[in-house]
């Protein structure tokens, strides 16, 4: 079946602009996660949704970052007033449920470059 998909695959923007990154999870998966991976680093947790609600947003770096999942499926990560330090690969993952140790399936990522 189809895996997690993310669009766009690449996004180049200018400092100060607003961007939206989209994630389509695996059908039937109730849990959705966003991570950010900077060059040479492992993925860094940003936010976790269970259904439509953000169950844990402790990883969002500041209030310029916001994510939604209005219908409990597709999610959008929104970044306002982008800064050069926001440049990274943004990864989305989904899992069947919130059960402890549920396998998270990752998408290919969106590479964001802020000039």
């Amino acid at each position, binding site marked *: 079946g189809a895996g997690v998909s993310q669009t766009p695959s690449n996004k180049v923007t200018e400092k100060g602009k607003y961007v939206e990154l989209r994630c389509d999870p695996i059908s039937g998966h109730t849990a959705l996660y966003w991570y950010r991976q900077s060059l040479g680093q492992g993925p860094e947790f940003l936010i976790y949704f269970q259904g439509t609600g953000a169950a844990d947003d402790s990883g969002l770096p500041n209030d310029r970052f916001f994510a939604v999942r209005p219908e409990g499926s597709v999610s959008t990560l929104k970044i306002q007033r982008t800064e050069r330090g926001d440049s990274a690969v943004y990864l989305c993952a989904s899992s069947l449920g919130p059960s402890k*140790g549920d396998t998270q399936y990752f998408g290919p990522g969106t590479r964001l470059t802020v000039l």
Partner: protein
Amino acid sequence: AQSVTQLDSQVPVFEEAPVELRCNYSSSVSVYLFWYVQYPNQGLQLLLKYLSGSTLVESINGFEAEFNKSQTSFHLRKPSVHISDTAEYFCAVSGESSASKIIFGSGTRLSIRP
């Protein structure tokens, strides 16, 4: 809070040689441990995980990892590597109280020489 240390950023080995990728974690609570792999031009995928029970866990492609609570380690091993094992490997941990939040190490790049 949990953290993960992968001391080796790169590990070069010859084909058919054994390999060990080291991972140490810190946590004050019970943990779940994972190894993820990222093959060239592909997304992250789960290789194996420890949740409870037997401390030795295996993957379908010959890797194994052993949970060692006293040494807070979860090293990944394979007795004989293949060219196709070339990838970046990430060790990760989550806590029992926040099982959905996975903390990743910085990764180890495994390069296999023929």
